[in-house]
């Protein structure tokens, strides 16, 4: 995750969410001290194996100080039978 335009202390959170239910399946918490607003910070988070209970959309949501910043998603589809 790359963050920019940040200055000061942030409590960061990445939530792994099943979109259809809104349920948070896993979350990573961290802290960020950004000194230069013009600099960008790369945050590397290694999640353990994450559950995909069924097909559908799963999101990684980025939060800073409880403010929603954005999200990206993966779509899980059933495996094709061979």
């Amino acid at each position, binding site marked *: 995750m790359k963050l920019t*335009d940040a200055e000061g202390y942030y409590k960061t959170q990445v939530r792994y969410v099943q*979109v259809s239910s809104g*349920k948070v399946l896993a979350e990573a918490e961290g*802290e*960020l001290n950004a000194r230069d607003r013009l600099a960008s910070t790369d945050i590397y988070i290694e999640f353990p*194996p994450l*559950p995909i209970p069924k097909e559908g959309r799963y999101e990684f949501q980025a939060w800073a100080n409880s403010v*929603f910043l*954005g999200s990206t*998603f993966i779509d899980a589809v059933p495996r094709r039978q061979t």
Partner: protein
Amino acid sequence: MVTKIQQLGQPPAVQLDDEGVAYHQQFQEILLSGLMPPEYVTEDWPLAVPDQVLLGTVRDGRLRVQSPIRVKLTQEGQNIIAKAVEFNEFGFGENLSEALVDLQHAIAELYFTLEKEHDRLGRDLQRVWAKLQKKIHKL
């Protein structure tokens, strides 16, 4: 940067090693549902929507949110309604993310519309424009 990862619910009782190829070769035989806590597989969860969220971006590179926008969330049937109370703007979607994205577009559009028409606005819209300028800066 300090990061703590928390797996919610029971973590799967599986120890992974670094032999990705071995896992790949056995992939056809692995019952993936066995890697998950049972409640993840069997339960159909009701839609969980928070009462409100604070929005920190409007998904438009030209606009920077200076202070978070308070968004109230309600559920109407299968749809989520996200309302930015200060601006009286709404976003709709089948889930939280869709509703927020719709609202973000609506707020950005409102910003540029009011900016363009700012010398012709009535009193209510002038108030909204003033609030928008406090919350959002154009880069």
